[in-house]
Each structure stands twice: as structure tokens, then as C-alpha cells.
């Protein structure tokens, strides 16, 4: 499980773009508002991988993130 932030793109925008690409992630505070404040981020995007995920799934995640960067330039 890993949380991340993309410079200049709000985590909810990242999540919507990934959703449209068929990649389900969680975006938000993850019930850790004090940590978000400490890290000075509005929220983060979180990807959770498990035994059923494949390398292709992760490739799709990366493609989705590239698409997000493309949209928000």
C-alpha cells in the first residue's frame, strides 16, 4: 500500500482520471488529517496492491498517472 502526491494535481483529480482508466484508488485524508497537515498536502492518492494484482495492473496505473500529467500539463 502506498500513498503519493502529484505536483500541481489535486489527489481527487488524480483519482477521477485513474477511475476513468479503470484503475481504482483511494484519494483523501485516509482519516489522518494531522499527518496531512504535517506533510503540508491537501490529501493524497493511495494505491493498494494485493496478490491478485498483476504487473499489467501497475502498468495501467502508471499510464493513468501519465495521462493525468498530460491533462493538467
Amino acid at each position, binding site marked *: 500500500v502506498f500513498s503519493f502526491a502529484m505536483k500541481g494535481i489535486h489527489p*481527487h*483529480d488524480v483519482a477521477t*482520471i485513474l477511475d476513468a482508466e479503470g484503475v481504482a484508488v483511494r*484519494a*483523501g485524508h485516509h482519516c489522518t488529517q494531522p499527518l496531512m497537515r504535517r506533510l503540508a498536502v*491537501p490529501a493524497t492518492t493511495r494505491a493498494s496492491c494485493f496478490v491478485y494484482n498483476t504487473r499489467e495492473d501497475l502498468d495501467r496505473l502508471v499510464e493513468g498517472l501519465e495521462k493525468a500529467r498530460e491533462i*493538467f500539463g
Partner: protein
Amino acid sequence: MMDRSTPALGDLFQDIILEHYRRPRNQGMLAGATRHVHMNNPTCGDEVHLYLRVEEGVVRGISFEGEGCSISQASISMMTQILKDQPVAEGLRLAERFKAMMHGDPAAAADRDLRDARALAGVSRFPTRVKCALLGWDAFEKASDCPG
């Protein structure tokens, strides 16, 4: 029948929306503001401080400070352009039109009175994002209740 196909991202992240997000209109505190409302969406952290200067029932000044996703911030920026120099009562009517558009009303989405905000019509197809687009308008409705 309701269209259940996957909505296109292009409907959501249109250039005009991204442009308002990057270069918000009427941003900052407002000198001589008669009303100030703070609203946030605790589940996602989107936030707005809306400042109004209302004179004889007309919005003569409007500005905002905010933080959040592209949809919430662009929507607030567009709203400030729409409401400037409008009577408060007309502003409330426009808020209803905007809400109707968020519920998928095609007539509202074609209403020229909503100006740039019509670009947000596609948000109605992303139910989780509707509340983002409504944040600023909710703040305006709350501000309109205040005396002064």
C-alpha cells in the same frame, strides 16, 4: 433512459475549467467586504472563504480564497464572475439553475446566464464530483442569509 456509458474525461477537464483553476478570477480578500462565509467539505478538504460586498441588495464586490481540486476552485472562480453586480435575489436564482445543471437538467446547462460555468455541465456525470462544483454556490447561499 439514463446514459450509463463511461463518461469521457474530456467532458470533465475542459480547457476553460483548467484555465480557471490555474488562473482564478477574483481571488484574495475583499476590502470593505460586508459578508464573509467560510465553508469546507470535511470529507475531501476542499475549502472556500467567500467575501461579498453587498450594497442595497446588489453584489458590488465578490472575491474568494480557497484550496481544493480543480473542479471546486474553477467553479468558485466562474461563480464570482457570474455574481458580480447581480442582485442577491438573482444570484440565488442562478444558484438554483446551477444546481439543476448538476442534476443533469439540459435546459439549465444551456442557460447563457451561467456563462463559463456551463462548461461544468459534464460534472453531473461524475456523481462523486458534484459536491466539489457546488461548494462555492453553497457558500454564496449561506452568505445571502446573513444580514448586512
